[in-house]
């Protein structure tokens, strides 16, 4: 028996999607406040040393604190406070990024309740599940389940562990992990057999073969991922960290070796009075640290880990779980996208395009029956039949209320038909050709010869045939065939054009014959297609691309996709897929939406662009800071150096303080950008570089001049600052 349930986890909100632009969650000011305690906790040098730039900052802050306590001044205290704030702001950026993940992790934890599992023993796959077996099931706490156990789950119960359905069909509420409230069907065999622990069976009874190890369930992994506990630095992040560390060392050397030069210069001009910046012992410690902190790349150093965490988070917001940051980066580098036709390029649901009468039936009759059978059919296919009946045959839309006493027969996986039994005894059915013709034959009716040829013709052209039949006065007969056609999704052509401009080749994978495949490929505007694709074909295509050192991304759901998913550089498994597929891929899409692959690529790129843009910005900032601090330090000794004070800052003290304050505030100002990612528009590399160089390079040169000047205009009124 199951233990008591907690309330159903809140459905997570999904970020609205604008095509062509990867949006991210906005920064809520409340988050800043909530993360402040964490920011203080991160001051611990044992954790901070991992970030060399900010660690140097903290050491500097400690140093100025000591100096200022020994030799107190307003200037010294203000610098000290702002140096500490610089470190805190960096910690805050990271804490805010992590905080978002923690909120999601809490939601997930609520799904991880202590479920009792009902384990059955002495049963083998294929044997009937008898009532005896079910009642004799042994009750064990879910954490004690082992790989290979069989558990039985009935309607209303939580699934205790990840596994594959090996017996039965059930509808399952997976909102705990996907946020999607509509139930999904899980059945034994086939590609929709995987179930996730923590989700709830809504109907029927299934037997699940446990595939997870204790404590390594999908939800456990999700929690670890969104919390950032499993976060490892990605290859690019490591490389960037190395570059930043070496820049930090260079500036550390530049500042440290300045001291003997300053002492010499001061001694050379004995008449010059001591100033807060420079005395006979050289540049004062507070000013030296200020120069250092302003020069080392604090902006990117402060935001680097937040950018990485936020990048993973943006994926999670889109219900994609990346098993590693490496995969996210690889997504940005992808050269070839393998896209399944159905669901990605075309609407997963085909639409009615034509009613073809057979066996001498009138076209109107077919339309009428097709419409009747689809009244209660809320699927897009069903709706499209009603729409076609109205537009092509002028049949007025009817609703269920107009047919008193009518009994609607819903579609089921077993019968593969749906329809309606009217009050006057007339029965109408539509469905798969084999199912409907069997229904007609079983009722004693004859199946006209042209049914077979019509159905085959539609299939051959890439469409899906649905046969419509009716039974009046106990004589069933086939009326006609509905031609359901693939409809290419709106906007796909533009997206593929964008991909091409980004240098990404798109390949459509389909089981259709080459003729149909070509027609759809041309209509959608993909670069290439693979028709009548078997899993082996997919695999060899991936290997061929990879031999040319190209990175390949694909989606898949079936067990037979697993090898290809594992081989691809970015393999996105659908959550509806099998456990094997989910294991093999390096990402799981909880929405099972294959179009996401395109968004994943964009998020991967955006992650790198954000890092690059802020690095450029951070380094470009140094120019203005030099112009603020160098004259402030040395114009007292060599008055000519005041000419470098091109911002005409108020005084040496206000100049240095302004530079330090700007340096700290720019971190806070850029936190939203770091979390959201810089704006990304798919375009050629040259265009993208030009745009980002102008904004973050040239902008990074100019902005601090204005910023420091403005801060200087304000702080010159602080009493104690000359």
């Amino acid at each position, binding site marked *: 028996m199951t233990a008591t349930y907690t309330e159903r986890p809140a459905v997570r909100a999904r970020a609205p999607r604008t095509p062509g632009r990867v949006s991210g969650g906005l920064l809520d000011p409340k988050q800043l406040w909530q993360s402040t305690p964490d920011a203080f906790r991160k001051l611990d040098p044992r954790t901070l040393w991992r970030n060399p730039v900010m660690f140097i900052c903290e050491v500097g802050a400690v140093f100025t604190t000591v100096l200022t306590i020994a030799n107190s001044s307003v200037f010294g205290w203000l610098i000290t406070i702002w140096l500490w704030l610089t470190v805190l702001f960096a910690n805050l950026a990271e804490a805010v990024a992590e905080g978002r993940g923690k909120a999601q992790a809490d939601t997930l934890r609520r799904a991880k309740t202590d479920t009792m599992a009902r384990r059955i023993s002495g049963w083998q796959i294929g044997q009937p599940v008898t009532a005896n077996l079910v009642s004799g099931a042994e009750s064990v706490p879910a954490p004690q389940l082992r790989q290979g156990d069989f558990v039985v789950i009935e309607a209303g119960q939580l699934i205790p562990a990840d596994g594959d359905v090996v017996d039965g069909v059930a509808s399952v509420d997976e909102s705990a992990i996907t946020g999607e409230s509509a139930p999904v069907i899980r059945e034994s065999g086939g590609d929709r057999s995987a179930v996730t622990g923590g989700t709830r069976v809504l109907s029927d009874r299934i037997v699940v073969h446990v595939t997870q190890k204790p404590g390594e369930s999908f939800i456990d992994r999700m929690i670890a991922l969104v919390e950032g506990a499993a976060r490892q630095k990605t*290859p*690019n992040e*490591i*490389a*960037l960290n*190395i*570059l930043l*560390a*070496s*820049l930090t*060392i*260079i*500036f550390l*050397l*530049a*500042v*440290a*070796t*300045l001291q*003997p*030069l300053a*002492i*010499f*210069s001061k001694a*050379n*001009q004995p008449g010059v009075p001591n100033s807060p910046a420079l005395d006979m012992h050289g540049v004062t410690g507070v000013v030296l640290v200020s120069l250092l902190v302003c020069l080392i790349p604090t902006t990117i150093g402060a935001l680097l880990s937040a950018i990485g965490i936020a990048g993973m988070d943006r994926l999670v917001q889109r219900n994609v779980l990346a098993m590693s940051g490496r995969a996210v*980066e690889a997504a*940005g*580098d992808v*050269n070839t996208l393998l896209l399944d036709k159905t669901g990605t390029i075309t609407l997963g649901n085909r639409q009615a395009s034509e009613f073809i009468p057979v066996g001498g039936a009138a076209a109107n009759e077919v339309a009428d029956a097709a419409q009747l059978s689809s009244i209660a059919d809320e699927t897009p296919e069903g709706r499209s039949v009603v729409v076609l009946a109205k537009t092509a045959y002028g049949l007025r839309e009817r609703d269920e209320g107009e047919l008193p006493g009518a009994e609607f027969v819903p579609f089921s996986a077993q019968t593969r038909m749906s329809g309606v039994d009217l009050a006057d005894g007339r029965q109408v059915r539509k469905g798969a050709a084999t199912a409907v013709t069997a229904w007609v034959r079983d009722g004693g009716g004859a199946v006209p010869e042209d049914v077979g040829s019509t159905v085959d013709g539609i299939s051959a052209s890439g469409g899906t045939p649905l046969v419509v039949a009716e039974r009046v006065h106990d004589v069933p007969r086939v009326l006609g065939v509905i031609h359901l056609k693939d409809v290419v999704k709106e906007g796909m052509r533009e997206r593929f054009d964008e991909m*091409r*401009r980004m*240098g*990404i080749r798109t390949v459509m994978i389909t089981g259709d014959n080459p003729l149909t495949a070509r027609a759809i490929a041309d209509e959608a505007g993909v670069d290439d297609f693979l028709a009548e694709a078997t899993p082996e074909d997919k695999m060899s295509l991936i290997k061929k691309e990879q031999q040319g*050192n*190209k990175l390949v991304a694909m989606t898949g759901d079936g067990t037979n996709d697993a090898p290809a998913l594992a081989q691809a550089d970015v393999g996105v498994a659908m959550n509806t897929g099998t456990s094997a597929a989910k294991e093999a891929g390096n990402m799981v899409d909880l929405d099972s939406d294959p179009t996401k692959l395109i968004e994943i690529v964009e998020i991967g*790129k955006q992650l*790198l*662009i954000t890092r*690059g*843009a802020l*690095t450029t910005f951070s*380094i470009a900032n*140094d*120019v203005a800071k030099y112009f603020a601090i*160098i004259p402030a330090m*040395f114009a007292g000794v*060599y008055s*000519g*150096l005041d*000419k470098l004070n091109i911002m005409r800052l108020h005084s040496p003290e206000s100049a240095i303080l302004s530079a330090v304050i700007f340096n700290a505030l720019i971190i806070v100002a850029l936190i939203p950008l770091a979390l959201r990612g810089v704006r*990304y528009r798919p375009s*050629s*590399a*040259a265009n*993208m*570089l030009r745009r980002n*160089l102008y904004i*973050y*390079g040239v902008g990074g040169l100019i902005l601090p001049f204005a910023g420091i000047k403005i801060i200087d205009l304000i702080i010159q009124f602080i009493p104690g600052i000359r």
Partner: protein
Amino acid sequence: MSSSVAVFLFLVLLVVALVLTYRPFGDYMARVFTSARHLRAERVIYRIGGVDPDSEQPWPRYLRSVLAFSLISVLFLYGFLRLQHKLFLSLGFPGMSPSLSFNTASSFVTNTNWQAYSGESAAGYLVQMAGLAVQNFVSAAVGIAVAIALVRGFARRRTDKLGNFWVDLTRTVFRILLPIAVVFAIVFVAAGMVQNFHDFHTVTTLTGGKQAIPGGPVASQEVIKELGTNGGGFFNANSAHPFENPTNWTNFLEIYLILAIGFSLPRTFGRMVGDKRQGLLIVGVMSLLMAVSFGLIITAQLTHHGTVPTAAGGSTEGTETRFGVPQSAVFAAATTLTSTGAVDSFHDSYTSFGGMITIVNMGLGEIAPGGTGSGLYGILILAVLSVFVAGLMIGRTPEYLGKKLGGREIKFASLYILTTPACVLIGTGIAMALPGERASMLNSGPHGLSEVLYAFMSAGNNNGSAFAGLSVNTTWWNTALALAMLIARFLPMVFVLGLAGSLAKQEPVPESVGTLPTYRPQFAGMLTGVALIVVALTYLPALALGPLAEGLH
């Protein structure tokens, strides 16, 4: 002909000469390093050295060969200098002191040619010819070999082999440096440079005074001094000496020789990686930096507001009247933008801004066009860093010429750009902190500081020119500068070869419209910006207390 027209013609001719050299010479060098054929003379060398010229080396072995060869060179030259009085053609000069020998040996082996001695009063002809001039050839060749190894790293795929150092070294000497040196030595002799083994002649001048006129194998050494961007003068006055630089047109030829290899190697690079546009971009950035640098020096020299410069129409102090201010400025820019360090005027006498530009030129890491080989690998390292940042900005794992730049590659490139500033800054800082060493300054105040900064900048970038005004023949200065030269020469080579090794292993990523186009002007702008901001800005605080303090009133 007015002097401004003369200068204009001088520059135009120089540019035309370099442009005409670029293609044929660059292609020729590419052939030298890709050809499978060995010359007979080369085979003899290989047999003597026990080298199999057809076997290639992975990067650690290539590096070991470079270091072993250089170590032996230092030891050999050290012994030579210590013992020169026991050998013939010593002109009676005593052996050099241990610290001076160490300094000079390090200096010539590292292609620096910092001279803490005066050629005409310390080095005999045998030492000059068989010791120093030989190093002028091979130290230049070592630089080129390392640069070629890096180019092979970009050009090759899925291999750990970077070529054979001994073959690269021998071919550079036999097929590139020697033929040019022979031809130009004859030209220089024709122009009036001396080439003999005569001792000093004492002559009576027109006014009746006595003067000692030196002889020596000058022309042969002069060519390689410029061609190999060595810069070590036969005489103390270097290229301002009439025997080293007799006429205006030898001055032109010397500047041309300084720049010829540096400006043509990018073509070799473009050729070997199979994309000539890439070479064109590199040479474009080099030219831009050179043009800006020259423009700034000449402006500083001609527009100084002092009383004397205004009266003379330019800062003529320290320049040869034969060459004049503008030509001297071209020479100064060329010599500090390459690792040459030869001078035909004295940078110490330049206006403070003019002098500052020569310091900044070296501070850039000598990449425009830089020393033989070292200029190319220096700018390629900066290109790697620029590509890294630019590549991130277009949303891909950065790749340069199809090779991905990951942690390992960036580690080598970062360490490379760290080495030279560390040598320069730490050296300057220590020198300024020690009162005894500060006493070596002949000037006080900011100008004295500039002299010390210049000395370490020159040693740390293997330039070898001196601001003068510093008595450096002391044990401390000789040792400190020698260490700076050795560290700043060979540590970067370790990183360059390491980078080359990890690049060569990679299979290149195919190019697409998503690839960063590293042959467009926008990338040239980015590379220039990175060079200026990342490299040159490092020295701004020090410059502020030296030339800037002096120049801004």
